[in-house]
């Protein structure tokens, strides 16, 4: 016990000494359970970003500490507490899951650190719970499904069946599509989520089919997405109940679907703020190097994580230290970095104002299944909760 004490004391002193020239970023994501496939993609992208930056943010060394949220809010909050208190990081970034972010938010902000979400965008944090030290490099949850609702209107879909997991983001996604979709929602299922998520959707798919809807809208991120697509395919619903999804068909599920040769997903359409085919220099470098290093397309989770690190690095480089919080905040808000989605600008609630694209699943030149942009659905879109944010 005594040795343990001296060791940690020594570690404490060392971290204080090193603190002057290092910027520490805690990155919370899912590294265990089936959802770790998302975490892995984010981790890869963060490492790539650090590599592209040469391990430096201006004159300061970059250090990223990864932490696992175990796909559960309680574990995520514990991991966050540890980053803030023990590792004394300057920034906490990451967060795939809205409920994990909501649970961890207070730990970071109360400690006076900056919180950067690289994915989750729960409506609460965009609105009432917004904070000057919180920034998002992704979107507010409602926006992507809102874009999909708009697509549905343009395609003349009159009635819709909706399925999503029963957690914060699932509810936001449903709210989002309901906000823009002008037709009728004829049925809705919210299914069990988390480490023991429901993956067999036989009962729900039978209901959806019986509802006679023109289409089905789903949100199943990570492993559940693959499971859903397979069952949708097996149930033979492609012609009678076209699939419109968000965050379900992506660079993480496509390789698996291609391996299993589930061609039913070809041509399926989703909305997103980013795509590997977006034509700008930063994105080309990101996608090419990612593919070279990890042998697969990056996903939007990765793109957003890459941007999060670039954003932090740009602010730190501009200010030159990590102690001047006010200067850092202002520098973050300026978002003066080369984003993989082209231009990048924060709105009043520190969520990006950005474009949303309709993407389609296609085969690339090498025969790999990927997505490409079909059209721009929203330009410079501002989320619906920004007005509720008072700061």
């Amino acid at each position, binding site marked *: 016990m005594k040795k343990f004490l001296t060791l940690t004391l020594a570690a404490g002193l060392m971290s*204080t000494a090193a603190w002057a020239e290092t910027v520490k970023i805690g990155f919370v994501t899912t590294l265990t359970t089936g959802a*770790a496939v998302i975490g892995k993609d984010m981790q890869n992208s963060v490492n790539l970003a650090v590599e592209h930056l040469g391990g430096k943010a201006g004159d300061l060394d970059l250090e990223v500490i990864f932490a*696992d949220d175990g796909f*559960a*809010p309680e574990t995520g909050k514990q991991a966050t507490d540890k980053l803030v*208190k023990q590792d004394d990081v300057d920034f906490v970034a990451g967060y795939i899951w*809205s*409920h994990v972010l909501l649970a961890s938010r*207070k730990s970071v902000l109360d400690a006076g650190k900056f919180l950067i979400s690289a994915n989750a965008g729960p409506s609460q944090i965009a609105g009432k719970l917004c904070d000057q030290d919180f920034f998002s490099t992704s979107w507010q949850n409602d926006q992507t499904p809102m874009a999909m609702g708009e697509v549905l209107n343009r395609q003349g879909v009159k009635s819709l069946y909706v399925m999503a997991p029963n957690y914060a983001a699932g509810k936001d996604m449903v709210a989002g599509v309901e906000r823009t979709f002008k037709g009728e929602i004829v049925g809705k299922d919210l299914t069990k*989520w988390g480490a023991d998520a429901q993956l067999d959707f036989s009962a729900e798919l039978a209901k959806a089919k019986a509802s006679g809807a023109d289409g089905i809208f789903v949100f199943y991120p990570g492993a559940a997405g693959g499971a859903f697509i397979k069952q949708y395919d097996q149930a033979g619903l492609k012609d009678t109940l076209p699939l419109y999804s968000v965050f379900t068909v992506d660079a993480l599920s496509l390789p698996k679907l291609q391996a299993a040769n589930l061609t039913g997903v070809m041509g399926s359409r989703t909305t997103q703020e980013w795509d590997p085919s977006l034509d700008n220099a930063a994105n080309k470098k990101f996608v090419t190097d990612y593919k070279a290093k990890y042998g697969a397309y990056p996903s939007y989770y990765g793109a957003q994580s890459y941007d999060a690190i670039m954003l932090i690095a740009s602010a730190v480089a501009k200010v030159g230290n990590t102690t001047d919080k006010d200067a850092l905040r202002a520098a973050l808000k300026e978002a003066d970095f080369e984003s993989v989605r082209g231009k990048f600008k924060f709105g009043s609630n520190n969520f990006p104002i950005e474009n949303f694209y309709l993407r389609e699943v296609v085969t690339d030149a090498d025969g790999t299944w990927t997505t490409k942009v079909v059209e721009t659905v929203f330009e410079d879109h501002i989320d619906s909760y920004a007005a509720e944010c008072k700061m």
Partner: protein
Amino acid sequence: MTSMTRRGWMTVAVMALLAILPPVFYLTGNPFYLDLATRLSILGIAAVSLNLILGYGGLVSFGHAAFVGLGAYAVGIPAHHWLYGGMDFLATTSGLVQIPLAVAVCALFALVTGAVCLRTKGVYFIMITMAFAQMIYYLIVSIEEYGGDDGLVIDTRSELPFVNLDNPLQLFGFSYVALLVAMGLVRMITRSRFGMVLKGAKGNEERMVTLGFNVYAYRLTAYVISGAMCGFAGALLGNFTTFISPEMMDWSRSGELMFMVILGGAATTLGPILGSIAFIVVEEILSSFTIYWHLPFGLMLMAVVLYARGGLVGLLRGRGEDAE
């Protein structure tokens, strides 16, 4: 030195270290270790409460995490209503209301479920206690108002006279003292006539029945005391994490509590505390090395079950001495 005093000294030494080290860590700029100690003190109370029925009573409850969760929600729900309105009769931030509420709710839940569970024996008991815990788990998941699966952030901690739970040192002190009280209480119970009957029924139920004791009533009483005490631990845990979710009641959490008791040494005063210290410290160390830490951790748990009967207390005391 007789084994009795040796064990007594060990208890004093461990508890003294647990009192002194965390504040030292805190004051030397390592607040995280204080948090760790607070967490293990709180889980220690839960383990002590489980030890009463599992260790001394031989009643293997695989659903004790439900009490932790219920206790935490008894803090979170009144605080939630106090902030966001609704259910005015429940809305409060006073710990003098919340904590007794947690204890009362858990005692009641233990009384109702215990009455059913204790009719069963052996593995049926293990599984029915788990079933009741799962029921509560899904009940909480289904209540949208309290966050369902997403859980609930507790924005304000319980307000108590003399103690400010927002201060990490005071929160630790409060938890630590509560742990001492819980240990003393269980020690007192198990040395009373009541405890003798409980322990006697573990060894030979029929003899106790023949002697004219209503074993069922004794066990139910112990189950209620244990549940109430665990509910108190839950109330503290809610205050500590300031976030509660159904996850706290997952069956694997009940398994972890069981492990703390067995790891440390069932039916001993110090066992549950040693168990929770070892469990949490090892978890912390392993998980900082690798994301695959469940592998060595699981191997360690299996090794303890297979080779270290009597737990850490048994190991420290040497072989050949039976648990109290």
